[in-house]
């Protein structure tokens, strides 16, 4: 307890609440952070929304300083200065960024409301979400695992993905670190024997494709041996419009996902 107090006392943000520092931090954020965390820190392709006061890894400015400096092991969050682009940010610039994120937090009024129990019931029941999506180890594997989706996507983005699944397929990781950019594209192939296989693409190159079908069987295929190969940016996920899931239902599902993420 005492130790914690000392660390926090040493690592107080010297620029806290300074609007000039927040402005400088906004630009530093754009240059260093926004590629993953999005313009305005509202979450991007792979970085979580940082405008929420409750964060998964950083509970105060000192912890945030530590995370920006050293990264988060086991995640895509790199340590300052390790992206192959020089020597990284100065301490002052990191504090500017923290000041900026703080200023965005106060502006964020998004409060997740909804019936978590009902959302969970829909997810694993009538909504059929768990046929393809996994949460905490339960559910299907055809679609992306949603256990921590609420930490990396805004509420609006999740709702949009339910209402218009094809508008934006799961974003593949950006190039520098992408090993395996799965984007959940839909595919229909006809094999040499005339067998049709529909599914999502696990991986692909110019000569081969690895597909998972709705029964979660994996097919490893050579393209030149197929009768046809048809890729589509239409998501394999059905469009959930208001007739299928009401606005309240959708909110409840989002509340459930947020509740999972918070745990």
């Amino acid at each position: 307890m005492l130790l914690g107090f000392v660390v926090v006392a040493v690592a107080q943000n010297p620029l806290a609440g300074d609007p000039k520092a927040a402005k400088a931090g906004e630009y530093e954020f754009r240059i260093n952070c926004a590629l993953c965390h999005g313009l305005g820190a509202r979450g991007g392709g792979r970085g979580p929304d940082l405008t929420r006061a409750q964060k998964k890894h950083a509970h105060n400015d000192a912890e945030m300083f530590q995370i920006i400096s050293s990264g988060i092991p086991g995640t895509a969050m790199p340590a300052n200065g390790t992206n192959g682009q020089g020597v990284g940010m100065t301490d002052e610039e990191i504090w500017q960024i923290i000041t900026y994120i703080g200023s965005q937090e106060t502006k964020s009024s998004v409060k997740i409301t909804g019936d978590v129990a009902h959302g969970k019931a829909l997810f694993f029941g009538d909504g059929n979400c768990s046929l393809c999506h996994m949460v905490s180890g339960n559910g299907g594997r055809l679609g992306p695992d949603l256990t921590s989706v609420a930490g990396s996507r805004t509420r609006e983005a999740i709702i949009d993905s339910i209402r218009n699944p094809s508008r934006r397929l799961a974003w593949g990781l950006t190039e520098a670190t992408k090993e395996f950019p799965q984007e959940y594209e839909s595919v229909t192939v006809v094999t040499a024997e005339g067998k049709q296989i529909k599914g999502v693409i696990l991986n692909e190159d110019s000569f081969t494709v690895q597909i998972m079908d709705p029964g979660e069987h994996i097919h490893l295929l050579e393209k030149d041996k197929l009768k046809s190969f048809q890729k589509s940016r239409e998501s394999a996920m059905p469009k959930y419009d208001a007739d299928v899931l009401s606005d309240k239902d959708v909110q409840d599902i989002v509340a459930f996902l947020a509740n999972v993420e918070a745990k």
Partner: protein
Amino acid sequence: MKAQGESSKHLGRRERREHPRRSQRDYRRGIFLFLLIALLSRYSAAQVTFERLVNSSKEPQNWMTYSGDYSGKRFSPLNQINATNAPNMVAKWVYQTGATGKFETTPLVVDGTLYATAPDDRAFALDARTGRPIWMYQRQLPGDIRPCCGRVNRGLAILGGKVFLGTLDAHVIALDAETGAVVWDVTAADYRTGHSFTVAPLAVKNLIVIGISGGEYGIRGFIDAYDADSGERKWRFYTVPGPGEPGHDTWEGDSWKVGGAPAWNTGTYDPSTNQIFWPTGNPSPSNRGEGRAGDNLYSNSLLALNADSGKLNWYFQFTKHDEHDWDATQVPVLLDAGGKKLIAQADRNGFFYTLDRTTGKLLSATSYAKTTWTDSKDTDGRPVANQNASPTLEGHTVCPGALGATNYMPPTYDPQSGLFYVTARDQCDIFSTAPQPYEAGHAFYGSAYFPSEEAEPYLGFLKAIDPATGEVKHKFQHTSPTWSGVLSTAGGLVFSGDAEGNFIAFDATSLKPVWHFQMGGAVYAAPIAFAVDGKEYVAIAAGSAVYAFGLR
């Protein structure tokens, strides 16, 4: 892997042992003969003269410059491997470097020895038939170097008995081609202010020509020439003109001091006019034009320099007052078409340009990829930026994106098919300003860019352009955009790699794949062809290894 420091290391060399029964006289005679033979073989091997470089087409078994010859064609006259037998190609050897990061090297091959570089300023020599190492060198780099975009290196130059390396801490180094020992080491600039070398130098006459990197750090760019024997600097051409020099007035106030215009890709050379053609990169800060009003010469330009003096003969600026990081650092290719002496460049801004290489006059500019930044041309025929191409605070989508329609990956011109092959990308980015003060040694972008969701997915191609018309005659779509360069050979083949790790042979007349091999690592390098003992090989770096392929 443990760093080797600044020493070279012999690998696998057998120890010589004195025979106990041999008399001392025999022994002395033996030593004398050995030294004589060593001396003779030393002077008969790996002596690459300027004349050999000028006449490189007479020795198609060797690959002696970054682009294979001075013209930048990256075309090999070897034809043992052709469109008919290419399906029988197999991997002949693989050399693992142990390096991590993007592997961008183009190897050199001279008389059976392959020389190449790897990330973190490694250099090595291999038996080109087997991939077995002869020597290895690794620069001991300071901890606080400032590479822009990875700890990369794109290759060596060779001249006399030496190979030449530019380092990430902005030194130029000559290594003994036989041993890897450092012959000389000179400092070109201070790495702490953001200077570095990533480029393969070019040997011309007795000069080692090299261009600086650091366009993301507000350096003042330059191209240097060093005496190959002594390392003495013979000339420097600043790519941003100083006070009193022509072009200085294209910079606002003191902005020229941090104006960028690096020169980080290898140029070409025309022996008949003694001109070096060297392209330059973005003005700094790369994505924000405010504060540097004007054309910002000689950023994003092609420079024609007198090889002896480094004096500027002519220049052509592809993108004036660039705000999108569209470095013009693509290999400028010398080719003759329609009775004209051309220089052709597929630029990062999405246009394919041909110029008269004796005068620098623009002959044509044709779009070869997705472009939204221009809808008109000036009186010279040069595409000019439209009103809303500039980045804004809120962010503004422009194509091509910051990575460009192409980038450093070398193209090829095949005189047999008459086509220019280039790796191309269709991608748009949101460009958003982020004003930033200059601070020495600190990244200096002035803006940020993001992938534009509207344009997903990004498309990657190999395109074949007719240089006479600028028309794209054929294209092959990759699964995703690639960073691989392209090679053409007299066997009617074009070779390139992809981001998924494939090395692919294409029919040069159709761009249909005729062979491929999965190398297990993304390609950031460009292929070469060479021959040893009458057998043709094609080699490329991928992942952290060098691969050589040949016929079964």
